[in-house]
């Protein structure tokens, strides 16, 4: 499950938990550019798919990886 408040499912006993962004926008971030936002959604979903393929013993939190090229393009003007 993807959630912005992983402490809750950890306590309740969900087993594969992926950290999302915020309650209002769990799977992305509207403050980013569209490209970066969609890349973030992709990382979150891919982390979830990875979790489905990972053995766990109990409630386990999976953190989406930091983007390798997270910098916004900077334009000199």
């Amino acid at each position: 499950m993807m959630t912005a408040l992983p402490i809750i499912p950890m306590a309740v006993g969900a087993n594969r938990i992926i950290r999302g962004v915020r309650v209002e926008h769990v799977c992305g971030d509207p403050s980013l550019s569209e490209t970066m936002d969609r890349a973030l959604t992709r990382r979150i979903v891919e982390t979830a798919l990875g979790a489905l393929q990972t053995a766990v013993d109990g409630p386990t939190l999976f953190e989406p990886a930091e983007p390798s090229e997270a910098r916004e393009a900077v334009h000199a003007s």
Partner: protein
Amino acid sequence: MDSLVRVVHYLNQFFGGIGGEEHANLPVETRGGAVGPGRALKQALGDQATIVATIVAGDNYFVEEEQASAQSAIQALKQYDADVVVAGPAFDAGRYGLACAQMCKLAQEQGVPAVTAMTDDNTGIITYGNDVVAIATGTTPTEMRSIMDRLAPVALKLGRGIELGPADEEGYLPRGVRKPIVRERVGAARAVDMIEARLTGQPFTSEVYVKQYDDVDPPAPISGLSGKTIALVTSGGMVPHGNPDRLGSARAEGFFRYDISGLDELTVGEWESVHGGFNTQWLNTKDPGYALPLRTVRQLESEGAIGNVYDVYFATTGNQTAVTSAQKMGREIAEELREQKVDAVLLVAT
């Protein structure tokens, strides 16, 4: 001298002495007096009450033919002028437990109090636990005598129109009902006592019952997702624009299915979140996908990273949802997914 309490006893086809599973479709029959385990009940009731009739029905019949069985049961209650109904005990038999609970509900709707007995996790309790008075039992009929000894006092009280005390005093399963009472000492003093007891390892009784969550064993991981079917579920209250099914913005008791076959993404304006627990502006003006990332999942599908996306997504609102409602929804969704051979679920919880 109190007049005798008139008890009507409900039994299934087995305890009613008709037969086993092959008679599970037995329509409702009513006999005068006590039958089978009713005799143990009669003994436990002593000279305070009389079992005026026993209603017997097949486990399948009573839960499948609700209308017909309700009619027959109500007729019997009137004919025999019942003061109270005792149903079961059903032990851990699910259909029987459900039938007993239904019988109690029916009786209560007719103004006749009722009590039943079954295991605390019987389907009857899961479905109607808060609506009926039930004594907890184990699973073996060898306890019959002691169960009847516990049922009798409750039945007598109910039959005499006496209000039952708290569950732990009268010996029935808690129904989540809270009644205001006055205690001798103020709450602050009682709370301090409880903390002291807790810190020194002394026993204490909480005044508020907190529902425990069940432990779920993690399913084994899937090896490789290409070729696998993934279903999407959201508690973000995401529904088609206009909320055609009137999904509630809080305290949802159920979920809805929405067809996404052939759909590449959820677009603003065509879909909306009705969740009443947070600001839905991002979902409704920027991207519904934040609560149901269909676009991304479709990309992965077209790349072959996953096999395919299940035809519908499941939507509810995760705002003040009762734990029991959530459990029920989870069970129903899981049942469908299992039947449809879905391999995994992505659940956006918010």
